[in-house]
């Protein structure tokens, strides 16, 4: 292939500039991402509100937005990202083998996964938990009233164990109908075989929004019977990359706490608040310390908004998923979202 001299020169100059811009000792994943000019994120094959391809093939959702934020922070204005849909069985293998740079799916953070799979969880972007979807016509207020009910669920995660534990702990009984896949369990539930469908609340909200014949006729009971914190996962081989991903998440949460939004981030750059100035790179050297440039957090917020905006846009009360913030509210509003200090 012949490369025209001029554009070849331009490319060489760009590469030279890039090599100056990037810290020399960046880890292998960060280095590879920069060289490629693209972040490759593993996503769920299709969970409305979290990661789902729309009719034009564009991936939308809370977890895909987080991938975009990381991409904007690391790669600058020319940020690009590729989404690789993965099944629950494939997702960790794809990360271990280096096929993807980061896993942004609905994978629960557990000790086993964090400690023994050669991976690291870089934080929590959604506090989830196993719950129950029931028809409103049953008039239930609490999951404890489900004594003696048939409950449809899927094998594969710990949902069967959580169910048995919950009902035993409360001295109640239930009849499990266990399917191999979520969509079979869901179909059996909607056909009326079971009085309740048990899965993670994020999934139940998604199912109610997109699969229920009439979303208003179904309700999610308030009880969460397990803890399922969902977060981004990276491979253990690059701590620089891990740190960058972790702090992009912190920056998005911090931005919400400080009232920085995608709309006002430009004006906020001139804020007199030293904390905001440090976050947006107009003061201090936070970007360099992460091995990134000063505008890292500014670009991430500019592109996808702060954590609250991401939540409201994808899964919040105004979306078909109708999820309340609850545990996912800021710590100042009684939730669990808390960013470490940027200083």
């Amino acid at each position, binding site marked *: 292939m012949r490369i025209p001299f001029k554009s070849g020169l331009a490319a060489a100059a760009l590469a030279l500039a890039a090599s100056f811009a990037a810290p020399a000792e960046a880890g292998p994943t960060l280095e590879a991402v920069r060289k490629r000019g693209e972040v490759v994120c593993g996503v769920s094959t299709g969970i409305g509100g979290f990661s789902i391809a729309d009719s034009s093939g564009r991936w939308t959702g809370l977890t895909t937005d987080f991938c975009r934020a990381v991409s904007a922070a690391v790669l600058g204005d020319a940020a690009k990202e590729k989404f690789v849909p993965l099944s629950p069985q494939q997702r960790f293998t794809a990360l271990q083998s280096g096929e993807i740079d980061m896993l942004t799916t609905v994978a629960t953070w557990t000790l086993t996964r964090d400690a*023994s799979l050669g991976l690291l969880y870089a934080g929590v972007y959604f506090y989830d938990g196993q719950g129950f979807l029931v028809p409103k016509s*049953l008039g239930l207020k609490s999951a404890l*009233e*489900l*004594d*003696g*009910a*048939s409950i*449809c669920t899927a*094998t*594969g*995660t*710990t949902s*069967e*164990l959580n*169910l*048995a*534990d919950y*009902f*035993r702990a409360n001295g109640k009984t*239930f*009849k*499990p*109908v*266990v*399917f*191999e896949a979520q969509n*079979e*369990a869901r*179909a*059996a539930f909607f*056909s*009326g*075989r079971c*009085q309740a469908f048990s899965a993670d609340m994020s999934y139940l909200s998604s199912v109610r929004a997109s699969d229920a014949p009439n979303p208003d006729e179904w309700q999610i009971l308030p009880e969460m019977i397990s803890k399922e914190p969902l977060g981004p996962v990276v491979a253990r081989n690059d701590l620089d990359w891990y740190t960058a991903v972790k702090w992009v998440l912190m920056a998005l949460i911090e931005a919400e706490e400080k009232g920085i939004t995608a709309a006002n981030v430009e004006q906020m750059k001139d804020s007199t608040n030293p904390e905001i100035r440090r976050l947006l790179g107009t003061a201090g050297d936070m970007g360099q310390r992460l091995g990134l440039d000063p505008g890292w957090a500014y670009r991430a917020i500019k592109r996808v908004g702060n954590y609250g905006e991401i939540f409201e846009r994808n899964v919040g009360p105004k979306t078909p998923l109708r999820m309340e913030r609850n545990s996912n509210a800021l710590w100042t509003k009684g939730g669990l979202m808390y960013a470490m200090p940027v200083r």
Partner: protein
Amino acid sequence: MSAVAVLPVRSARGWSDPSFRSLATQVIVLAVLAGTVAFLATNLVGNLEARSIRTGFGFLWQAAGFEIGQSFIAWSPSASFGRALLVGLLNTLVVASLGIVLSTLAGFVVGIASLSRNPLVSPLARLYVELVRNTPLLLQLYLWYAVLTQMLPAASAAPQLLPGVYLAKSGLHFPVLQHGTEPLLAAVLVGVLAFAGHGLWARRQAERNGVPAKLWPGLLLLALPVVAVALERAVTASFDVPRPTRFGFSGGGMITPELTALLIGLSLYNAAFIGEILRAGILSVGRGQLEAGAALGLSRGQALRLVVIPQAMKVAVPPLASQYLNLAKNTSLAIAIGYPDLMSIGNTIINQTGQAVEVIAILMCVYLALSLAISAFMNWYNARVALKGAS
């Protein structure tokens, strides 16, 4: 005088010696096979160690912790993983044995119907066979399950078919005896023994007198103890009747729609194949046999039952055996429609314990044993129906 030149016979050595060559080839193939297995096994052990995955069968005695929807033996989440596998095995055996009986009965009907001279019956049987044989079993199971769960009434609107018997989306609910079913089981056993004993005696009588044995005294012996005990229990013991609750029914016995759908799906699917096997068997018996039967004064039905079918079975039994094996192994599709069979419970155990290699090894051994048992029975039966003297 002529000298006879004796040509020295050179014995073949090395690769030109056929017996050495065949021995050496076998040794090499065996060595390669053993080497591959050993390589894979060391790899497996190494990989499991590298990922610090526990190995061994100790987990079988740990508490399982999960609930099972249908169990023929006492089950609670505090029972062990081993017992969970046993529950699954019993669930599989129930489906496999009922499926074999039902598919054989339905298969006989289909096989004979497809040979019928009736202008309606024969094409219908052919249509059924072609329709069922040429669609995937999994799809048919989904269909039956959807039919059962979509079309039956909700538990709250379940019709009472008989006093205490309800049919709903949650299954068929019926009353069961409150205390101990042991006397009833004993009665069934006594009945079966009496039936078998009477059968032997009647056959001997029939051979002596030349008068065909009657069936009804045997059936009476079979039913009498069960009916007697059931009546006695019905009077003295109380029944556990299903009571409607907010979410369906509590108490009583139940047949779940999962079991029903699986049983219908497996039976109807295999009935099509069994029908074809029997049709082939019957066609293999010459027309002359039927005509000879008619010449002896046997009715068409008698000729079919006494002359044609016994000979047809000789041809039909070996393929029938492999059809039964198919059915037994296909019960593992149960997981797709939520029936807690051995495979489904094994899957759950793998998820809970991570002991995939061990659980899969156990499952393979169990299915192997089940298949070998069916094979052994069918071989015995085959030897019984085979033409004596014909090898």
